[in-house]
């Protein structure tokens, strides 16, 4: 196939492979009912053609974005169509692995329930805890940065705590704050606090002596230096911490619900649906969590690009 690409040129090869890939994907889906071995064969062929397609696109110098967009979509298509075809062909019981079509059906049929779970876990539990935890960490970081004693004392403790399995505090906090979203927010605050603290302190230290001297020649006060030089300089670190703790916040809010929750919420839904062996519902909840995680992450990335446009990693 590599020889084919070299013979006709990258563009034509890519344009040949693309329809071929789609046709084979369609065949794999149609043939999925019944004959197990054939379905697997079609999926393998599909993966191979997809591979060639991406390989050809990677060499397409005139359209570098083509490969960047098509490649992950092609892999996603192979995985999802392969999953669908193989599950249906081999008659895998849906208590082990439901096919994607069934998950989508369950997802759209249970929109109101899932939306209520989303509001309970993500908006009330995770986001409120996330905002509170980050704000607390920020205040503490400014203090730590100001007083050397705190830096030498609190920072090693913070580094130690940041590596700990803080999820383990969930049962205790659920006991203290009750089953509703307040306890989930508390877990999130504890989980988010230390990674944020470590990152912000590292960021505040990230100015060169020359820059600080310049501020001194302007006879800038501590607060002026903080606001105009050191906070902007800390932003790349802050966003790094924000991104890491965004995932942690979702994990904390969901796992805390395993230890007790009202009858709504993503973690509750996972547990309850597992008890009924309704795996299609569990997967729908996972889709919700994945969407929430990706959206939050995407939002933070956009904000980062907007605020830290001057940083080398953001320059084009």
């Amino acid at each position, binding site marked *: 196939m590599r020889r084919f690409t070299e013979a006709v040129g990258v563009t034509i090869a890519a344009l040949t492979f693309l329809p071929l890939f789609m046709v084979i994907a369609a065949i794999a889906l149609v043939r999925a009912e019944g004959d197990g071995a054939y379905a697997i064969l079609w999926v393998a062929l599909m993966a191979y053609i997809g591979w060639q397609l991406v390989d050809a696109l990677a060499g397409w110098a005139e359209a570098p974005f083509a490969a960047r967009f098509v490649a992950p979509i092609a*892999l996603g298509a192979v995985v999802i169509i392969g999953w669908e075809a193989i599950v249906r062909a081999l008659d895998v019981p849906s208590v082990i692995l439901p096919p994607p079509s069934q998950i989508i059906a369950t997802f759209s049929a249970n929109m109101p329930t899932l939306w209520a779970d989303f509001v309970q876990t993500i908006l009330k539990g995770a986001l409120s805890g996330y905002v509170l935890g980050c704000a607390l960490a920020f205040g503490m970081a400014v203090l730590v940065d100001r007083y050397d004693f705190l830096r030498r*004392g609190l920072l090693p403790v913070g580094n130690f705590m940041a590596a700990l399995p803080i999820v383990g505090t969930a049962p205790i906090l659920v006991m203290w704050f009750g089953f509703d979203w307040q306890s989930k927010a508390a877990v999130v605050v504890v989980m988010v606090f230390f990674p944020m603290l470590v990152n912000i302190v590292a960021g505040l230290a990230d100015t060169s002596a020359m820059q600080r001297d310049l501020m001194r020649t302007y006879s800038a006060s501590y607060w002026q230096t903080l606001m105009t030089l050191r906070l902007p300089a800390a932003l790349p670190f802050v966003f790094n911490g924000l991104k890491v703790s965004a995932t942690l916040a979702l994990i904390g809010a969901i796992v805390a619900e395993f230890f007790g929750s009202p009858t709504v919420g993503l973690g509750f839904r996972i547990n309850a649906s597992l008890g009924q062996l309704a795996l299609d519902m569990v997967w729908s909840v996972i889709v919700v969590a994945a969407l929430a995680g990706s959206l939050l992450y995407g939002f933070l990335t956009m904000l980062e690009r907007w605020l830290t446009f001057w940083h080398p990693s953001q320059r084009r």
Partner: protein
Amino acid sequence: MPILTIVAVILAIWYIAVLPMNIKEVLTQAEREGAEVVPPSAIERRDAGRWGLVFGNLDLIGPSWSSERARLPAPHQIAGELWKSTWVEETTGRRGIVRSGSLSNRSLVYHGGVTLGATLLGFVIGSALGALLAVGIVYNRAMDLSLMPWAIISQTIPIVALAPMIIVVLYSVGLSGLVAKAAISAYLSFFPVVVGMVKGLRSPDAMQMDLLRTYSANASQSFWKLRLPASVPYLFASLKIAVAASLVGAIVGELPVQRGGLGARMLGGSYYGQTEQIWAALLTAAVMAAGLVWLVGWIERRTLRAMGARP
């Protein structure tokens, strides 16, 4: 020295916080035993502020620090529980190692061992697979283009939340216990290693790669002599994240299946209101996490020194 001060301050705050957290339970207990408590009726006490109750009953400070079913046990109670469920249980307990020849299933040594086994197995599998995939991504453009976006997206998804499902599904196909928990640990340690290792393998700059080309080094030589050594610091940085993540994975993986492990101890403690048991399990997990990260750091220092890095 500042660290000791901070730890002492935290302990002091802890001891003070124990008072209002436990005061209501302690007052109820004291009243049952016939002691005089300041607002005599239970209804008044229910509506009273916790601090007010503490100052009204200053003689009950001692009992608050040794309450049986405390909402927040005092540090010395946790230390006592830790001692009781490790050393005392193993040496004098009926099922301990001294009397029965095997670790007691009521001791934290046993449960910690269960968790540690799953963590290490998952960590080794996940890191090895992650490093292999990273090599594939660096050397194959098609893999890079199609896999890397998914690897990054998967980092934004709360994967730990899937743990109970993975456990149940693997259980229903006949894999249980260690393998299922190790699968979650492996999954969690996999992506940090992929991302870090890819960054590391790409870290040699164009000048260094050009130098190897002037030596007419082939692909495997440039891999073994330049790319792999250059990736080692990045690899260890992500291994530290990965080992902590796999411990979390193992603990969460133990929640749905009550077959031993620190996660099972925590859930059991939260069901039966045994706060000391939760805290002891949490502390064991903390010590284990710190130990694992320290171990990876120690291997890192030894490796870097053997490779000629100056400290």
